[in-house]
């Protein structure tokens, strides 16, 4: 019998090794799998490469992981935010490597990894310093930059409902990077707030088919908090 439901966060994350590349879902606070990140901090893997849109807010979640000093490099589009002081300090003291990627290229490079695409030409970034040194080509009169996939060993994502085959639904804009990261990692671990019986999730509404998911773990529902901007 297939059963991807893990008894605990600890069990779900036990395979994460030193030096792993770990994708972490979320755009600001929405979709950030806080319990899985806390679990990764407790688990202790180090020398990590993290892929996320941002570089953490305040001192919780991803920022707390960075603060442990176990992240060697971060691949993201928007590290600098009103409350990203943990990253800012690490970056200025050269304790973390940054690969800055335009947000759409980040998404498409992750998608390409999951979809078996060797590389792709995109117009985004052409002629800018973020395309320096990259192969370019004119196609049908337009200029493009060659971009390569981003693969991961693990993806930690936040979903809404899951079943024992690993099928997932998401909630509102918390979906963001979850579905594509699930496809690009060798091992995807999803937190869910509800576990459904097989067949209980309307098959027309499954967003991530279970084959992309290795483990799901149920965590208590807590309201997502504000992140990434200065509150008035």
């Amino acid at each position, binding site marked *: 019998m297939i059963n991807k439901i893990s008894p605990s966060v600890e069990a779900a994350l036990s395979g994460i090794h030193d030096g792993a590349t770990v994708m972490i879902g979320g755009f600001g606070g929405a979709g950030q799998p806080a319990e899985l990140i806390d679990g990764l901090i407790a688990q202790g893997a180090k020398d990590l490469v993290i892929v996320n849109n941002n570089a953490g807010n305040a001192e919780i979640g991803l920022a707390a992981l960075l603060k442990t000093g176990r992240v060697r490099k971060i691949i993201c589009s928007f*590290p600098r935010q009103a409350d990203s002081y943990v990253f800012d300090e690490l970056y200025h003291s050269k304790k973390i490597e940054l690969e800055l990627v335009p947000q*759409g290229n980040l998404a498409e490079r992750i998608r390409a990894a999951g979809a078996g695409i060797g590389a792709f030409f995109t117009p985004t970034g052409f002629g800018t310093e973020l395309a320096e040194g990259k192969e370019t080509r004119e196609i049908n009169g337009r200029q493009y930059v060659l971009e390569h996939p981003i693969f991961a060993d693990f993806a930690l994502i936040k979903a809404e409902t899951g079943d024992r085959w690993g099928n997932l639904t998401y909630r509102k804009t918390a979906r963001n990077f979850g579905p594509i990261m699930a496809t690009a990692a060798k091992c995807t671990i999803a937190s869910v707030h509800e576990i459904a019986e097989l067949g209980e999730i309307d098959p027309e509404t499954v967003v991530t088919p279970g084959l992309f998911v290795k483990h799901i773990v149920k965590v208590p529902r807590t309201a997502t908090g504000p992140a990434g901007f200065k509150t008035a």
Partner: protein
Amino acid sequence: MSEQNTIPTWTRDQMAARVAADIADGAVVNLGIGLPTKVANHLPSDREVILHSENGVIGMGPAPAKGEEDYDLINAGKQPVTLLPGGCYFHHADSFAMMRGGHLDVCVLGAFQVSVKGDLANWSTGAPDAIPAVGGAMDLAIGAKKTYVMMELRTKTGESKLVDQCTYPLTGIGCVSRVYTDVAVFDLGAGGAQVIDIVEGLSFNDLQALTPVKLTDARN
């Protein structure tokens, strides 16, 4: 600069209303973070305009009432928003496919500089110790059918942000077709900078004195 204080300007709300007036019924629009966000407040009520936000929502509605915020439903500025009936959610690769694939009609962005050829600089001032952050700026710049910029014509120290050649790091090349400023509206393209509107009380010659870019008077 006293001269700067005495010339007539449009307020930020008037600028937003000026942009909104040019957005057609039925258009799908992405409003960038900052000043462009104001455009949403000025869309004429007799037009149906669909707002897209690159974090994965289309059919975005206004900010929720105090106490009703749901931080799983946010915009690209990470502020809480609402969803209108007919709106929906999608993942990031789909969201940027909408943009890169040319499915959005208009994108309105802020800028540090825009060149007369439509080059855009809006993601970095190139300061050596600044932490670089690009987000969706480069995707937004080149994706929509039309990319508009909304900015004050001059910096706080009086330099023109409409330039012959951008000196800040580029976001996109030849991507901006129209610039809405606090004193005039410019169309950019092969014909150079065409002035299509000027704030009341400012002459064309007064406007030309504010920028080194050679302007053409194209007002009807």
